[in-house]
C-alpha cells in the first residue's frame, strides 16, 4: 500500500529547507523501493518545528520535526513511514498541545489539505459555505455576516457586515470585491499562510461576498513579497474556474463572478484601503479623502467591498455553520477567533488561532515558551509597526479590540513581535518614525514632514540636547500626527513612539545619565 507523506510547501518552511527535505525523502523512498505519495501541504504553523514532516498512519498523522536532509535516511531506518519512534518523533500531530489547544475555524484546513487540490478542499468541507449562500438572497447573506460579529481582521476591526450592507444598498452597473492581501505589518503572515495553504477558502469567501453584494468582479491585491502565494492562488483560481466555481455561471446559479490577481510593488501604504484602490487603478498609492467611502465610490468610482484576506476567508465557515456558531467564540464585542502570529524573539513562534480573550501572557509563555534567546521578555509590539510597545505590566491584557484600545494599543492583524531585554526602546521609537518617513505617501503634512521631524527630535532627545524640551516637542509632534493625519500611517506611528517613551523612559535618557555620571 502506498504511504502518504506530507512536507510543507509553505514559504517559511521552504526558508528552513523544506524543499531539500522533500527531495531527500522522495529520493530515499525511490532508492528503497517504497511506494510513496508525497503531498506538499501548507504549514501547520508550528514554525519552530519546520520542516515538519508528517506521515499518515492508521492512528492519524504522525509528525517529525524539525527534519533536515541529513536526517532523512535515519528516519527511514527507524520506520517513520509507519509512524515509529525516532529522536524527531513528535507523536500524533493533532495531539501536540500547541495545536490541540487552538480553535481553528478559519485555519481549519491549513496544513492538512493539499492546497493544489480542489478535490481535497471539497473532501474537507470546502465550498459548503458557497452552496449555503447560493440558497439565500443577498440580504440574508449580509445578515448572516452581520450576526456573526465578524470584524475586519486587517487591523481596523470595522464590522464586515456593515460594509457589505452599504455596497448591497448602493445601486451600480458594476460593483467590486477587493481582497486586501498587502500584508505589510511586521510580525504577521496569517494572510500568506491562508493563500499558500488553503487558497480555495479565500476564493470561496470572495465569491460569497460577490453574491451578497451583487458584485461580479473580484481583485486580490497581493504584495510582491509573496511569490509563493501568487503561484498557489493562480493554480486555485484556474482549478475553481475549470470546475465552475468561478466564471460566467457560478455553480449553475446564473450568477457570474470573475477573479483576478494584481501585484503590489512594495509600498506599505497600499495596505490602506483607498491607497490600494488607487494602486489597482494604476496610480501612485496615495490615500483618498473619505468620504466618499469605498463602499459607495471605491474602485473606478464604483461601490466596492475592501476586506482583508482573513476576513474573507472567515466567511465560508460563517455561512456553512451559521452566524451563531462563529459568534459563540470570543468575548465582548470581539467575536469569533483571531489567527494570532507569535513572532520575533520567541522560542516557539507560530500561528495560534484562538477565540478572543486569551491573554498575552498565556501566548508568550504557555504557547511561546519565553524568548528564543532565553533572556527575559522586555516588550512586545502588537499590531504591526504602528502598534504600541507593551511592557510586562500589561501582559495580562486579554486579546480584545476594546481592551487594547483602552491602553492606547491595538490588536491590529494579530501579530505579536517579542523583544528580549537587549532591546533599545529609543532605537525602536526612532525606527517607527523612520519607517513612516520611508513609507509615507506624501499626501498629508503631519505624516510626510512629521515623521522626518520625529526622527530628528528623537535623535536630539537621545543625545541629551535639552532633553526636557525635546520630550515636550516630541509629544506635541505626536499629538499633531495623531489628530492631523489623513490615515492610520501618520495617525498611528506615534503609538509605538509614545508607548516606548512612557514605559521605557530610561532608554531615552542614557546619554543624559552618562553625562551626569561623567
Amino acid at each position, binding site marked *: 500500500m502506498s504511504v502518504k507523506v506530507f512536507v510543507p510547501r509553505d514559504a517559511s518552511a521552504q526558508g528552513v529547507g523544506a524543499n531539500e527535505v522533500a527531495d531527500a525523502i522522495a529520493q530515499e523512498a525511490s532508492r528503497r523501493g517504497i511506494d510513496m505519495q508525497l503531498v506538499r501541504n501548507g504549514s501547520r504553523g508550528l514554525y519552530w518545528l519546520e520542516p515538519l514532516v508528517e506521515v499518515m498512519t492508521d492512528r492519524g498523522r504522525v509528525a517529525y520535526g524539525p527534519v533536515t536532509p541529513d536526517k532523512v535516511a535515519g528516519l527511514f531506518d527507524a520506520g517513520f513511514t509507519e509512524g515509529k519512534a525516532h529522536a524527531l518523533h513528535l507523536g500524533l500531530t493533532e495531539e501536540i498541545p500547541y495545536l490541540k489547544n487552538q480553535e481553528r475555524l478559519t485555519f481549519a484546513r491549513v496544513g492538512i489539505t493539499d492546497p493544489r487540490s480542489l478535490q481535497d478542499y471539497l473532501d474537507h468541507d470546502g465550498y459548503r459555505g458557497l452552496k449555503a449562500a447560493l440558497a439565500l438572497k443577498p440580504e440574508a447573506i449580509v445578515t448572516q455576516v452581520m450576526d456573526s460579529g465578524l470584524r475586519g481582521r486587517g487591523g481596523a476591526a470595522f464590522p464586515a457586515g456593515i460594509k457589505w450592507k452599504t455596497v448591497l444598498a448602493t445601486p451600480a452597473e458594476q460593483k467590486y470585491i477587493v481582497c486586501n492581501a498587502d500584508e505589510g505589518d*511586521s510580525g504577521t503572515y496569517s494572510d500568506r499562510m491562508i493563500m499558500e495553504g488553503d487558497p480555495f477558502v479565500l476564493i470561496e469567501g470572495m465569491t460569497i461576498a460577490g453574491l451578497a453584494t451583487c458584485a461580479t468582479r473580484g481583485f486580490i491585491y497581493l504584495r510582491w513579497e509573496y511569490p509563493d502565494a501568487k503561484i498557489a492562488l493562480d493554480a486555485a483560481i484556474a482549478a475553481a474556474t475549470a470546475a465552475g466555481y468561478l466564471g460566467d455561471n457560478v455553480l449553475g446559479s446564473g450568477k457570474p463572478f470573475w477573479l483576478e490577481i494584481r501585484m503590489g510593488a512594495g509600498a506599505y501604504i497600499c495596505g490602506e484601503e483607498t491607497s490600494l484602490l488607487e494602486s489597482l487603478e494604476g496610480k501612485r498609492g496615495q490615500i483618498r479623502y473619505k468620504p466618499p467611502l469605498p463602499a459607495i465610490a471605491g474602485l473606478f468610482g464604483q461601490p466596492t467591498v475592501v476586506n482583508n484576506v482573513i476576513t474573507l476567508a472567515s466567511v465560508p465557515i460563517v455561512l456553512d455553520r451559521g452566524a451563531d456558531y462563529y459568534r459563540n467564540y470570543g468575548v465582548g464585542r470581539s467575536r469569533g477567533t483571531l489567527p494570532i502570529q507569535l513572532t520575533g524573539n520567541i522560542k516557539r513562534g507560530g500561528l495560534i488561532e484562538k477565540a478572543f480573550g486569551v491573554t498575552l501572557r498565556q501566548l508568550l509563555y504557555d504557547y511561546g515558551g519565553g524568548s528564543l534567546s532565553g533572556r527575559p521578555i522586555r516588550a512586545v509590539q502588537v499590531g504591526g*509597526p504602528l502598534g504600541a510597545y507593551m511592557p510586562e505590566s500589561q501582559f495580562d491584557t486579554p486579546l480584545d479590540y476594546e481592551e487594547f484600545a483602552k491602553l492606547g494599543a491595538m490588536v491590529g492583524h494579530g501579530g505579536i*513581535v517579542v523583544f528580549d531585554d537587549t532591546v533599545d526602546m529609543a532605537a*525602536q521609537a526612532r525606527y517607527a518614525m523612520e519607517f513612516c518617513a520611508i513609507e509615507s505617501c506624501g499626501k498629508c503634512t503631519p505624516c510626510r514632514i512629521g515623521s522626518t521631524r520625529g526622527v530628528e527630535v528623537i535623535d536630539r532627545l537621545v543625545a541629551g540636547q535639552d532633553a526636557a524640551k525635546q520630550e515636550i516637542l516630541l509629544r506635541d509632534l505626536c499629538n499633531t500626527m495623531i489628530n492631523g493625519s489623513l490615515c492610520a500611517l501618520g495617525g498611528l506611528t506615534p503609538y509605538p513612539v509614545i508607548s516606548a517613551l512612557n514605559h521605557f523612559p530610561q532608554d531615552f535618557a542614557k546619554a543624559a545619565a552618562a553625562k551626569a555620571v561623567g
Partner: protein
Amino acid sequence: MAKKSSLHVIPVKVEPASSLSATERDAVLQACTELKALAGALMPILHAVQAGLGYVPKDAVPLIASELNLSRAEVHGVLTFYHYFRTQPPGRHVVHVCRAEACQSVGAAALEAHAKKSLGIDFHQTTADKTVSLEPVYCLGNCSLGPSIMIDNQLQGRVSPRRFDELMAKARAT
C-alpha cells in the same frame, strides 16, 4: 463650386524618441500590447517589463505613456512611487534583506551590517562583478523564523551572518 479642403488629417502616432535598445523596446511594447486593455493597466505593465528585463528603463516612460495615453509625469510618478520597481539593471541575483521589527528582534541589524560589509556595497547597489544587488525590504512574512532574506524569489529564514555568506557563495557561483 464647392470648396475642396486642401487639408487632409492623417492620424499618425509618432513613437517618442528614446535610447532604448531593441531588446528593451520590444519588451516594453510587448507588455503594453498584451496588457493595455486591462483596467488599471499601468502596474501590470511595469511588472511585466521588470519581469522581462529585470528593471524598467527610465526611457521606457515616454513609450509607456504614449501607449496608454497617459502623461509622462503620471507614468514617472507611478514608477518612482513603488520601492520594488528599479530603473537600473540588477545583478544576476537580487537579495532583499528584511529590516522590519520581528527580524530586528533576532539580529536583523547585525545581519544587514554584515551583508553590506561582506558584499562591499550599500543598499540599492550592485557588486562590481554584477552578481548581487542588495535591497532592503519591509517584511517577508517570515516573522517566526527571522532574520529573513529573499534571494530572487526564494525565502531564507534563520539567516546568521555565516549562513548569509554560504548562501551568497552558492548564489554567486550560479
